[in-house]
């Protein structure tokens, strides 16, 4: 196996999921697995979700679909059709992982439940991603990302006291579930090295999202304290947002206190913060509201950039509160090649994608293929992976099964 094939080269994944599970399969694809996105002949529903390239809606122009399906191949297959189901089972026979996010019980109804797949291919790992998992009183409840952030505790703690809670940017319930899903699949695959049999993974998105909240359960079980919303004051009480002349910055009182307070003092803005008792980190946390009120008064006439340059020179971990577009100009991200160019020959254009969060020195992460056009690899999969004859393939197309 060649070195640049990715850490998971040789792994075969069938992705039957909707966008609840797309990222889980993409994470495996990014790491080198061969992931086949199995789509209904009309296309995955994510292809209809915007934004679209140049705002022109089209199944092959959805940026939403693109992000979640980079590095995958696309097979259109009607798995509800008996012949389509057979073809899926043929693929499952040679696969390592099936990822699905249907409502609990739906796979079994289609004759593709764990018992069937396990009998067919005992080494197969099946990753089932459902809003509330495969068991329990909420098993059949409906949820979107927002409802899941609500029921997991992720939503309640963001925003201002007494006002409406503030929802995360991006679909972070789905993303948390996707990461835990990929982790769970890897755990099952590593156990398979020992046991030689696959496992069924029952992943609850509600639980995965609850496991992506830092402090709420700890405060509840540890201090019997229900964490509130605190505006921009971080629960640790060492960070708060301040308004500058031209924008916002994030204060941080975990850096070297002496150099920070010398700076503030030199501008005549330290008020009572020059008192030595503020050198104690616990005292700073305890009196964070007053501390930040004084610091807010100090930074309010600064321009963000000017403040940040001086803060960095003193190694104070301040940050500009900026829009995501600023990352395109970020020299650190640029130096690491975070944004990668991906060629879309069908459009005659190249686009910049956010890339890998990790660099593997032995098996580099890379973009192997752009997101697939609908059914782009149907022919090659039927021919090369399933060994079908051209006449059979033509018949499948004619019957609308692929």
């Amino acid at each position, binding site marked *: 196996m060649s070195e640049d094939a990715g850490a*998971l080269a040789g*792994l075969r994944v069938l992705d039957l999921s909707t966008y609840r599970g797309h990222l889980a399969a993409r994470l495996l694809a990014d790491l080198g697995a061969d992931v086949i996105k199995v789509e209904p002949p009309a296309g995955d529903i994510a292809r209809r*979700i915007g*934004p679209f*390239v140049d705002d022109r809606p089209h199944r092959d122009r959805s*940026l939403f679909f693109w*992000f979640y399906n980079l590095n995958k191949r696309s097979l259109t297959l009607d798995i509800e059709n008996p012949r389509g189901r057979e073809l899926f089972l043929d693929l499952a026979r040679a696969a390592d992982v099936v990822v699905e996010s249907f409502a609990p019980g739906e796979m079994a109804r289609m004759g593709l439940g764990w018992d069937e797949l396990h009998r067919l291919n005992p080494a197969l790992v099946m990753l089932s991603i459902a809003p*509330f998992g495969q*068991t329990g009183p*909420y098993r059949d*409840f*409906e*949820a*979107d990302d*927002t409802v899941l*952030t*609500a*029921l*997991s*505790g992720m939503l*309640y703690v*963001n*925003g*201002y006291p007494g006002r409406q809670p*503030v929802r995360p*940017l*991006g679909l*972070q319930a789905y993303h948390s579930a996707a990461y835990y*899903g990929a*982790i769970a699949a*890897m*755990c*099952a695959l590593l156990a398979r090295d*020992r046991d030689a049999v696959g496992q069924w*993974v029952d992943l*609850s998105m*509600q639980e995965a999202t*609850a496991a992506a909240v*830092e*402090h709420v359960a*700890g405060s509840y079980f*540890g201090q019997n304290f229900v964490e509130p919303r605190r505006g*921009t004051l*971080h629960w640790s009480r060492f960070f708060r*947002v301040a308004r500058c002349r031209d924008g*916002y910055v994030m204060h941080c009182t975990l850096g070297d206190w002496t150099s920070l307070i010398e700076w503030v003092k030199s501008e005549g803005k330290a008020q009572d913060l020059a008192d030595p008792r503020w050198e104690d980190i616990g005292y700073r946390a305890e009196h964070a509201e007053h501390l930040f009120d004084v610091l807010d008064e100090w930074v309010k006439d600064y321009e963000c950039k000017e403040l940040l340059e001086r803060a960095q020179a003193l190694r104070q971990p301040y940050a500009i*509160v900026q*829009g*995501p*577009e600023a990352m*395109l100009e970020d020299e650190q*991200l640029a130096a*690491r090649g*975070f944004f990668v160019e991906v060629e879309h020959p069908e459009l005659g254009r190249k*686009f910049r994608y956010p890339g890998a*969060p*990790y660099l*593997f020195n*032995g*098996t580099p992460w890379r973009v192997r293929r752009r997101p697939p056009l609908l059914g782009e690899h149907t022919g090659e999969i039927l021919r090369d992976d399933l060994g079908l004859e051209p006449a059979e393939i033509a018949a499948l197309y004619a019957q609308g099964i692929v």
Partner: protein
Amino acid sequence: MGSLALEGVRVLDFTWVVAGPVATRILADNGAEVVKIERKVPPPLGDRKRGLQCDLHRNKLSLALNMGHPRGLEIALDLVRKSDIVIDNFSARVMRQWRMDYESLCRVKPDIICVSMSGFGHTGPRSNFVSYGPTLQALTGYTRLMTDIDGEPAGYGYSYSDMAGGFTGALAALAALWNRRRTGRGQFVDLSQLEAVAALIGPCLLDITVNGRVPEPPLYNSQEAPAAPHGVYRCRALDGDDDRWLAIAVRSEGEWNRFVETIGSPAWASEPKFRTLYLRMRNRTELDANITRWTSQRRAEDAMAALQKARVPAGVVSNGADICERDPQLKARGFWPAVARADGSLTRVSGVPFKLSGGSGSVRTIAPEVGENNDYVLGELLGMSPVKRAELVAAGVVWP
């Protein structure tokens, strides 16, 4: 129940604060033996036997080792020889200063896997900068775009990026392990927490790079398939607490019809301005005001139950007591397991969010105090006699 998935895997854990410990918690829950290398005076983060610190470090072992002492470094290298994975979340220079960087570790254990979870990565102009979750969230757009309805930045009330960095690190470690079992080779994974959290707003970033669009705060506009109503709605107080809200998402005509029926088919719902999804999105301020008239008369739990009975997505905006005590689903699935202290008393922590049919991850042991497992690690893993261990303590290499 079968065996745990990662039984037999040993992890040497140099991580601290949150992001790194989240990564090693995932490995420990699933059966890896995680040995924390700690300073005698731990950072003042709180009690290990309850709450967040217990949650982060359960299932792990702790060795209090003086890495500033040459013999401390030797012991760390002896442990590397017996480990599969070494994880840290320092900025790039710390492990190098100890000569515990990947190249050095390869010399004592050629197939070692090293995962370094620094804030900015090991290369680039800011590789040695210290980062924190709130800083990373400010730099990547979360704080700016997660606004209150009046447009003021709010952001997360906590460090989501530490959690995201944690699960990214765990996945990287597992992928490297899978690869090593097939190739015999370890490797170095250079993870940037900044990049981990940046990657999680992918579609928004593509809209910027492809369409040149500067993103607006999404507020409660759906970020997936269009939906209206879609948002959080104030509900009746519960035991004097009026901070009660219900999240509702109505995505299709079918859901809209069932929603209207559930709330008693009020006259406003049949007005032409709410007839289609498009019109409901356009007139959402008025739509939301009408819905709040219904929710504010009801407890969030009751409104949720009524809507879910009609298969309309709805959920209580749950606080700590909701998720830890009241939520029947989390309870039914055993998501808050109890773990015993030495005196037999119990405390609860978060569970493992996935179940494996052949043996699920679990919470087996309470978090250790710093140095609690010195004897096991030095005695059983490294085969040192009690006399030798006492010598190390006397020499200030190991803290009791």
